[in-house]
């Protein structure tokens, strides 16, 4: 009798193991361990089929693959938190090395120097891009990362030191330009703490966080504000004026922490990074760096902070040190913050994170190099502006906001005789092989363009938009 290919034990080996243990069979083995909990067998499965041989399995998934839009025939102009960027072949080749993808967390640094060194380079490069002091070795995704940033700010808030458990008086001010998905995740994480989440309005003209509204909310009442959260560029693609926000926040008596998020840190190849404006914490999405969209996950949470706050940071941090002989060595450091040491008093419950995606990002950014990163970022900027200009020229759209943008922007579909709104527009365009954007309201859509979209795709978008809306 043959064994299944993932099991090295032959039927004879299994019999040998049973003999060695003095046990007759599976029934006796489990019976001795789990007592009267019933044993199940293949009959318990109605949906799980019989085993599939490898070629059959392969075909099964090739069919799945051919039943969804083909990469080369489907143009993606949707962003909204995840962006279609070019992934060089060298990344897949390197990441397919078992030495990277099959170990676990480097608990034994002497045999994990590869991962630790790569994560240290990741942290260094991300710190450069963000202009921040300390970057951790990754979080799950931008949303969870941002939620953890809010919790960290609550721990750090001066008032919290006297009364650690109660946040009933606390208000977190969140810009209306923060990705609604991230917004919801913050609510899930802070739900039990009593803290209140208050939205800051967007300026109706520019689409930037409304300074007057923020001023009012910071001044009103005696509530404590542990943090102000803004996204750069924001959900609608608009570049926030972080300078103005910084000036305002840093003038408050009990200074809130300035948390900057981003779902598209590629923008920092063109615009000033959060660290430039004194951000205390950066928490955002890093999937744009060398990772695929993968239908939404797994992603790459980036987390960075000023050096002073490092002991309140969540997650693993790779550090540089020496071995006994004075050679350079890398290890996870400051682990007394973490759950496996601190249990209930840890800064976070995170254990498994997005390590492999972080290594992908390290490889990607190395390949891009200093000049490539900047040029690709500029290319994004340029393509998005070309697309927007061309769409506005059709007369079918009008700008939703006037603010500057990077590779994403929002337009309103003007009233048309077919009464086509955002949702229907996206559906019709999708039938024509174009993912036209994300519906932001009944009539507004958020559109992005990256280096993965060339001029002929842009022209195809414009042509089809005309057909859909004229028809």
């Amino acid at each position, binding site marked *: 009798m043959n064994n299944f290919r*993932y099991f090295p034990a032959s039927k004879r080996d299994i019999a040998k193991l*049973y003999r060695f*243990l003095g046990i007759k069979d599976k029934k006796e083995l489990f019976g001795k361990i*789990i007592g009267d909990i019933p044993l*199940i067998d293949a009959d*318990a499965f109605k949906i*799980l089929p019989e*085993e*599939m041989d490898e070629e059959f399995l*392969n075909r099964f998934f090739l069919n799945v*693959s051919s*039943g969804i839009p083909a990469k080369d025939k489907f143009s993606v102009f*949707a962003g909204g938190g*995840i962006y279609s960027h070019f992934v060089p072949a060298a990344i897949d080749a390197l990441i397919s090395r078992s030495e990277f*993808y*099959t*170990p676990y967390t*480097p608990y034994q640094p002497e*045999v*994990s*120097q590869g991962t630790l060194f790569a994560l240290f*380079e990741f942290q*260094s490069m991300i710190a450069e891009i963000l202009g921040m002091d300390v970057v951790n070795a990754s979080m799950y995704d931008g*949303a*969870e990362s941002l939620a953890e940033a809010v919790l960290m700010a609550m721990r750090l808030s001066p008032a919290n030191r006297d009364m650690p458990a109660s946040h009933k008086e606390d208000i977190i001010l969140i810009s209306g330009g923060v990705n609604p998905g991230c917004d919801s*995740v913050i609510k*899930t*994480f802070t739900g039990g703490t009593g803290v209140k989440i208050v939205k800051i309005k967007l300026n109706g003209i520019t689409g930037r966080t409304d300074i007057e509204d923020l001023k009012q909310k910071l001044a009103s009442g005696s509530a404590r504000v542990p943090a102000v959260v803004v996204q750069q560029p924001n959900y609608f693609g608009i*570049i926030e004026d972080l300078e103005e926000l910084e000036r305002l926040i840093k003038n408050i008596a009990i200074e809130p922490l300035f948390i900057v998020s981003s*779902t598209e840190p590629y923008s920092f*190849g*063109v*615009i000033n990074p959060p660290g430039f404006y004194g951000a205390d914490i950066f928490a955002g999405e890093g999937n744009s760096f060398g990772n695929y969209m993968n*239908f*939404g996950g797994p*992603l790459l949470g980036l987390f960075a902070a000023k050096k002073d706050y490092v002991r309140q940071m969540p997650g693993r941090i790779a*550090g540089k040190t*020496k071995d006994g002989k004075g050679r350079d060595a*890398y290890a996870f450091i*400051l682990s007394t913050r973490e*759950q496996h040491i601190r249990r209930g008093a840890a800064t976070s*419950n*995170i*254990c*498994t*994170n997005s390590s492999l*995606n972080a290594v992908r990002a390290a490889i990607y950014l190395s*390949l*891009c*190099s*200093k*000049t490539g990163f900047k040029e690709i970022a*500029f*290319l994004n900027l*340029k393509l998005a502006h070309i697309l927007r200009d061309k769409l506005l020229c059709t007369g079918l759209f009008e700008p939703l906001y006037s603010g*500057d*943008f990077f590779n994403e922007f929002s337009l309103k579909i003007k009233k048309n005789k077919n009464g086509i709104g955002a949702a229907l527009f996206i559906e019709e365009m999708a039938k024509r092989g174009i*993912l036209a954007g994300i519906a932001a309201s009944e009539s507004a859509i958020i559109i992005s363009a990256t280096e993965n979209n*060339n001029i*002929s795709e842009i022209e195809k978008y414009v042509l089809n938009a005309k057909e859909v809306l004229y028809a």
Partner: protein
Amino acid sequence: MPKFPGIRGFFLDEVPLLRQSSRGVRGVSIPDCGLKKTGLKKDEGAYINKKFIRKDPPNLPEVSEPSVVRHFTRLSSWNMCVDSVFYPLGSCTMKYNPKINEKIAGLENIKNIHPETPSFLIQPLLKIIHDFNCILCELTGLAEFSFAPQAGAAGEFAGLKIIKKYFDMKGKNRKKILVPDSSHGTNPASSVLAGFTPVEIKTGNAGTLAAEALEKYISKDVAGIMITNPNTFGIFEKDIRKISDIMHKNGSFVYMDGANFNAFLGNARVSDMGIDIIQLNLHKTFSTPHGGGGPGSGAIGVVESLKEYLPVPYVKAVIKSGANVKSGVVDNGHIKQDIKGAIKAKGLKSGSGLFYVTAADKKYTIGRMAPFLCSFAVLVRAYAYLLSLGKNNIGSVSEIAVLNANYVKKKLAKILQGSDPFEEGLCMHECVFNDKAIEESGVSTLELAKLLIDYGFHPPTVYFPKNIHGAIMIEPTETESIRTIDSFIKAVEEIKFKVKKSRAVKSPQKTKIGRVNEVLANKKPVFKY
């Protein structure tokens, strides 16, 4: 053939890429995008306000593609991994990661799908999520799963939030979660994050939690218990049903940390143990790669009464027959998929009248955990793993895992005499030893771990669980041969009887670097170049 895989070391050194830079060099091709005619002459200032423009570009390395490839290839050679060594890291289930699953997850169309692509274009992907959900329900006996949690700890958090929300909806304020002292550190950490106070239950030397011992912790303030089964000693909680009954009688919930699900996958169901909520670590039991620390997935399953509390969004099937529209996940009998049938029909045009959609209509949902639906690339590997095994092989996974662990336990107990705290009974998928016997030989647990490296093995989990002195926790998994396990045992034997202290303190010696100075690392932390 040598007795042990670790013979000698050969390493190529590497300096940081930043120190290999040459001005203007890069390793990426900048796409033309059809912009040749217009060129890239205009500067950024032509598009956005100059005050936003970054003047100093980030100081990334300036290196070519071959330099990057050599750099990271060399780095990779400094790692031990499942594909190269026996990796018996207890509680982490370091089983083999099937290669076909990598190929499938890497299919060009699948990995390039944007999560906001309209449902009608991605029916086969939504169907995978739905069907995988159904299969996990079969494996656990629970009613529905959510794939929102990105890892085990996130699953714990979601499960506890569900309990919290349940009591909130009932207008009750139950504050405590019972957590055995042998639990994973994530358990108390997740409890705090979800707004509970974790109460540690002392498990003592018995190895299991006795139902009677639980009684004194019970009060109307207890929202639930987080129990790892088999526990972190690798021992099945015999009283699990009694424990569940006590909790349920008190109106409390039983959360099971499913990190150790590989112990009875396909042979027993958690529903038969009275479990209300469980998280399944797809990167452990379901063979998806650990990635050097992630990404993983912590799918969370619940009983019928908690379905409406699950995170959103989720995938549901909608069935249309005439005017009737039914929808849901795992609606027994009504929405049930014949996977093989669907293959013949190319996964989509099965004409069954079924349509899959993303929905957020959960009445009491705890909300969102992640920006999008799920970690699809992890999920699709786990699904492929289950389809490969099929119902005829699934039960062998835990059977062999348990046999292997007991083989290690019985053999090592003879070598490490007096070190098996639970010598009498059988363990499940992993076994734990204390450091009594090796201490007698003058070797500490840490030294044993480092010495094993020189023999060519990844060390087991050490110093966990905390209540076993100098704990050594070994999980061989079902994907290791007896030959490999024998070689590992032989190495432990040599360490116990032959190794001199002078060598132990210097180990490991065959690795790229020697023992790391952790004091220096933490005293003067260096976070970046």
